[in-house]
């Protein structure tokens, strides 16, 4: 493959007119630089702990700068976050509502010439479920729908062998997935349907992609150079026959400290920086420079919401009046405008960000947790703590937050303390100590500040985390009933939507959490980084990379640098 690429590049050099076609045969756009210059340079985080390129091996320890480019997922998400064909060209569900069939697009190949089949997907799912592999995303497939994938939980616990999993290859091009209970959002959930190659798994084990010699890819790129901690180089896969043939010739990942991403960007060493690594000082610089401002492309990201959570099973938060007092004491608008920055967030009065399915866009829920200090004090007095007298001193925990986010949570605590006259100290705990306290039964976390972003685009996900027995110490049986029923409902989209909205109203009204802000994500890009999928604003006027839209790898290219 490498020789072929080199030969092609030499051929290109000799025939300059053809320098505008990719190795896959696509024509570059008119304003593109020559093919040899189609190099994207991305920063890689040298403080993270990373072990693999593949989703199926580890989700939280992937080489985050160039992850998941060695296979295509079963579905992709379009600009409205609806599933569209990717590696699978169609799908259907049987009448029982639990048996799904995904039909793979024929003719897809691995970079070693062998065909991509449903047996690869089956082997990957079985690997993920296997107790030896101890996959860190295993919770997801027991979480989808009622009961999750068939036998998933029992296999993970070691009670049944992996080949009893409800994922089978009916034939080379048909993959069957069976769930325990109906789960209408299954196609969208298959945004996570990555695959590894069965043969390579058997020969080299799950980490076969860490070495260019044993790496195989069915995705748009192949691994050509890998120097852990220093540099990663991916090159366009000439044998790629999938849905997103790349215009880029090469992706280079350079390892550096996140504190220096923006500096490297300014020096021209990298072509894009994500919003999470842009400090408030960087944002101030961006806002002052029209070119930078125009090239900061905002998007929804994963619809992440910042909120405060409580232990509602113990005093003082077992009283609804206390929680309502806290909810009305946070001056969200001022905090977002002053501390967070309008470019980074919008004030939140509920869990679902406007733009997310079943989110409140009419402001119907805005009143329930609106900032009203007088009302907050009234509620606190009703609860038996007039002027904050007698209220216990609180310690609010954060989970290893970076300074900018910590500032927002501190501001929220300050807002409550100043309005109600209570004492709140804020502590930024080590992540493991935090989770240890949160997950303890009974929980040891009295008050915390966290954020949560979606795993798949459905209200069942973001509302599902609030169900009893989950990570939040709050319980409401009506809420549970509404969310469970709606999650399993097939067809009847309006009924389902209405049920989710009712559930969210209960969550906000009964103050399961105090919602502070919805985050805007964004990427700062160099002006020469082009591609319609993220440069053209969509129907809502939002440009930028969309979560779940990996088709942009077939669309991104380097323009002619002036």
């Amino acid at each position, binding site marked *: 493959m490498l020789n072929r690429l080199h030969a092609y590049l030499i051929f290109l050099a000799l025939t300059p007119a053809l320098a505008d076609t990719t190795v896959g045969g696509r024509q570059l756009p008119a304003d593109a630089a020559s093919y040899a210059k189609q190099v994207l340079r991305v920063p890689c985080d*040298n*403080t993270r*702990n990373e*072990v693999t390129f593949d989703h199926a091996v580890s*989700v*939280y320890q992937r080489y985050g700068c160039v992850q998941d480019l060695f296979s295509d997922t079963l579905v992709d998400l379009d600009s409205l976050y609806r599933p569209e064909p990717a590696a699978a060209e169609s799908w259907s569900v049987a009448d029982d509502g639990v048996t799904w069939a995904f039909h793979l697009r024929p003719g897809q190949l691995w970079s070693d010439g062998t065909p991509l089949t449903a047996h690869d997907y089956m082997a990957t799912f079985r690997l993920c479920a296997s*107790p*030896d592999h*101890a*996959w*860190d*995303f*295993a*919770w997801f497939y*027991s979480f989808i729908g009622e009961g999750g994938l068939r036998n998933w*939980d029992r296999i*993970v*616990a*070691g009670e049944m062998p992996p080949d009893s999993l409800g994922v089978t290859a009916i034939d080379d091009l048909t993959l069957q997935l069976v769930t325990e209970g109906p789960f209408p959002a299954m196609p969208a959930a298959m945004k996570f349907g990555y695959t590894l190659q069965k043969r390579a798994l058997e020969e080299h084990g799950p*980490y076969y992609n*860490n070495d260019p010699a044993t790496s195989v890819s069915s995705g748009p790129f192949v691994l050509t150079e890998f120097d852990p*901690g*220093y*540099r990663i180089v991916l090159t366009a896969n000439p044998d790629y026959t999938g849905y997103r043939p790349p215009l880029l010739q090469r992706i280079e990942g350079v*390892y*550096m*400290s996140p*504190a*220096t991403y923006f*500096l*490297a960007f*300014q*020096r021209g*060493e990298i072509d894009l920086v994500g919003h999470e690594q842009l400090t408030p000082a960087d944002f101030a610089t961006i806002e002052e420079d029209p070119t930078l401002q125009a090239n900061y492309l905002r998007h929804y990201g994963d619809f992440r919401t910042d909120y405060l959570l409580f232990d509602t099973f113990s005093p003082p938060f077992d009283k609804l009046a206390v929680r309502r007092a806290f909810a009305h004491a946070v001056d969200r608008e001022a905090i977002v405008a002053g501390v967070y920055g309008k470019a980074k967030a919008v004030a939140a009065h509920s869990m679902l960000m406007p733009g997310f399915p079943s989110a409140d866009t009419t402001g119907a829920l805005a009143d329930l947790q609106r900032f009203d200090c007088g009302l907050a004090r009234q509620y606190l007095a009703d609860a038996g703590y007039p002027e904050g007298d007698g209220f216990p001193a609180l310690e609010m925990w954060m*989970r*290893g937050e970076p300074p900018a986010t910590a500032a927002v949570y501190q501001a929220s605590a300050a807002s409550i303390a100043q309005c109600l006259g209570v004492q709140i100290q804020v502590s930024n705990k*080590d*992540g*493991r*100590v*935090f*989770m*240890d306290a949160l*997950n303890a039964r009974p929980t040891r976390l009295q008050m915390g500040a966290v954020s949560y972003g979606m795993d798949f685009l459905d209200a069942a996900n973001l509302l599902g985390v609030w169900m009893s027995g989950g*990570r939040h110490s709050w319980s409401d049986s009506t809420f549970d009933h509404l969310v469970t029923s709606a999650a399993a409902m097939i067809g009847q989209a309006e009924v389902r939507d209405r049920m989710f909205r009712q559930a969210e109203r209960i969550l906000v009204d009964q103050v399961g959490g105090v919602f502070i802000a919805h985050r805007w994500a964004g990427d700062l890009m160099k002006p020469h980084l082009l591609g319609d999928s993220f440069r053209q604003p969509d129907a809502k006027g939002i440009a930028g990379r969309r979560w779940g839209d990996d088709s942009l790898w077939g669309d991104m290219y380097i323009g002619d640098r002036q």
Partner: protein
Amino acid sequence: MLLFLCRRLFSLAFVLLGVSILVFWLMHSVPGGPFDTQQGQLTAATRANLEAKYGLDEPVWKQYLNYMSHALRFDFGIPYQQPQTTVAALIGRTWLVTLQVGLLTIVVAFSIGICAGLYAAYHQNSWLDHLVTFCATLGVTVPNFVIGMWLILCFSVARSWLPLGGWGTSGACLFGKYFCTDWILPVVAYALAPMAIIARYTRASIVDVAGEDFIRTARAKGLSEVALMRRHVLPNAQIPMVTALGTEIPNLITGSIFIETIFRINGLGKYFVTSALNRDYPMIMATFLLIALLWGVTYMLTDVAYTVLDPRIQFGRRSRR
């Protein structure tokens, strides 16, 4: 002397044993295990699987004996953070880089620090002396991550004179891979604080000795300043200097997490912090045993230095009657 060294080496083994017990017990007492990831929730079954796989479900004393039996055969296990390599290989690879950074920093910090200290001591209470004290104060109070960022801003971003980071991987090198331009900024940032410390200890130790009566006597007897410095002042001043400066050496050769992350140096420094935060038990044990070994050897060598510099000092004997 040989007997002394043998006894010390033998006691070093006991020190290492003591450290291993202390660290093992402590790290297992700390809440939070290596598999409680921050974002996802591991199912109880998955966590149980992982703990069984790594032998973490056994009683702590059993795990300790297991670990020690492997360690004595130089098998330090596999880091949880990077299961594809071994602890020994990881430390070997990363420490090599850190050693280079550290040794270079030692050379720079010691040479400039000692010279500055000598100069300041010689011109005691002059404006030069106060300048050195002032610079030393700044060098220690401005943390090295702030200095690092400012150096990058001045020399790498505002003006592209020097590369942003890396160690021998970016920028030009003399003779192929020695004296690379990307060595300059990290070493400067790293050396400022030790330089300050060394300068102050040097100056103070020399001033301390120079005020002694025997120095006045020697000078009165007509000894030149240089000979005075060389034969009387320096040997006596070096006892406290050796202690303080000796302390800097193991610190510098084990690296700094700030310098290494900001300047993109793939070294060992960050593992001292990240293995504790990630509860990576094999790495924690290995790094702390390494620290104990380095410090034990340093202490041994400084004690030897004491006896060389001041032959009256003898260990293992009660003071002369």
